[in-house]
């Protein structure tokens, strides 16, 4: 009896605090939604009344174009699917190669000190200037786009793997070694769990960069794929399908980013 009496006011205060916090969070979310909605309304009104209709389409027309021009056209659907395929291939290659090279370079002090600065120098070069070289070497098909996406994605993975391996406490490595762990055991049970955070930072960045690389290559080689259609719509002053196509790809990009984030949350859950 005495227990409930002392607990009651406290729990009531907690409930009040909780409600206040919840109300504030709801306020924030609803203000944000209202702002986004208001922005869309202004865009709609502006596009319908005073904007140049050859360049700007209202959101309602974009949504209509998404169903009537983009999703119903099998050629455009194919182009979008091809882009997705290129991104997935380039990303998988970037992660595997970046991880393997990062583990190799980060495994000894000497290799890290000698090779890591070279990697960082290469990372600082704006790779887009090599884009014409990629199309010379790989042609204008998917291979060039995959290779270009890969070359953008591999560096963030590599750099973050090496940086993450540096964060492993050397005492743990010494302890594992003194207990007779093999090299592969050390990598799996000591190095990997400690570099996982840095590794996933690299994975997230690599997804952004791979997308950038593939899209740049798509836009550069505008004789096929998504690049061709964006150019077509832009040159025929048909903004509604152009916005719809760009929007579809943007949603795809956000979805891929979220996928990486979800995987990251699963793997770093043990930390907290």
């Amino acid at each position, binding site marked *: 009896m005495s227990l409930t009496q002392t607990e009651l006011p406290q729990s009531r205060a907690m409930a009040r605090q909780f409600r206040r916090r919840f109300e504030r969070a709801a*306020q*924030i979310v609803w*203000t*944000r939604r209202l*702002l*986004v909605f208001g922005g869309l309304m202004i865009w709609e009104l502006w596009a319908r009344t005073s904007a140049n209709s050859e*360049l700007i389409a209202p959101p309602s027309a974009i949504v209509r174009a998404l169903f009537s021009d983009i999703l119903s056209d099998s050629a455009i659907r194919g182009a979008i699917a091809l882009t997705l395929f290129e991104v997935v291939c380039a990303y998988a290659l970037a992660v595997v190669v970046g991880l393997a090279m990062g583990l190799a370079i980060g495994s000894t*002090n*000497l290799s890290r*000190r*000698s*090779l890591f*600065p*070279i990697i960082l*120098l290469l990372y*600082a*070069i*704006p*790779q*887009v*200037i*090599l*884009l*014409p*070289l990629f*199309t*010379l*070497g790989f042609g204008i098909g998917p291979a060039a786009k995959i290779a270009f996406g890969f070359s953008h994605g591999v560096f963030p993975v590599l750099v973050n793997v090496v940086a993450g391996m540096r964060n492993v406490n050397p005492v743990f490595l010494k302890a594992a070694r003194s207990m007779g762990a093999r090299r592969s055991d050390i990598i799996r049970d000591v190095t990997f769990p400690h570099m996982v955070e840095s590794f996933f930072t690299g994975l997230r960045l690599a997804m*952004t960069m791979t*997308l*950038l690389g593939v*899209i*740049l290559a798509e*836009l*550069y080689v505008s004789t096929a794929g998504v690049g061709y259609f*964006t*150019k077509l*719509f*832009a040159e025929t*002053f048909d*903004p509604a399908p*152009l*916005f719809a196509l*760009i929007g579809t*790809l*943007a949603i795809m*990009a*956000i979805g891929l*980013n979220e996928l990486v984030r979800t995987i990251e949350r699963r793997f770093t859950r043990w930390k907290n």
Partner: protein
Amino acid sequence: MKATSSLPARAIQLGFLASLMAAWFIIGRTGAISPLFVPPMEAVWRAFIGLVQTNLFWSAVGTTLMTISRAYGIAIVTGILIGYVVTRSRFLTQVLEPIVSGLFAIPITLFFPLFILLFGIGPASKVAYGAAYGFFPIALNTIVGLAGVNSHYLNAARSIGLSSFGTFRHVLFPAAFPVILTGLRIGFFICFASVLAGETISSVSGVGRNIALAAELMEPARMYAWIVVVIATALVLNTLVSMIENRMRGH
């Protein structure tokens, strides 16, 4: 600790560079890889010397540098301004910060055809494209930096009667500066790369256009000469920016 192992490390770096050069030289001599793809070193050197003597080279470099500085200037001003406005209240920060970072998740490159459509094929579209790319890291870092300033400082500034500009100039900006500086550095390199990207993909002038043009005209030596120029510029800028950054952080 660093000095003991830096000698072998340097040796390996030099060896790597030397073997790369040797490989390029041998490929050029034997023609193991088509000279269309990897032209011989001497040809690239000759193309470089020829290029530097033309007016076209300097006007292209001038166009690109002008485009980058305009884009970066716009990105700095709008990024810091938006960052400042957004952090005027905690509520506003919590409402708007996710919108800004959410927009940053969308690859701006997708909208590149739109930039061409709106601003034409000249440098203006690259300025807008570079500024859009540079804006986000600067704005986001300004938001994080300004929102993280200790409120005691602000109370102190208010209690001695500083104006809002005085508070920004003497309290907010210096306190948030290290975080903003990171945004400025990232913003610069993104700006630099995206202006070159815009010029390569669709343009009539500038360095990026000349690289693409040399590729289209099947003049690999000239293309390599341009690439070497950009790589050298990027490396010099990288060193310069980290020097400036170290000096600014140093005091």
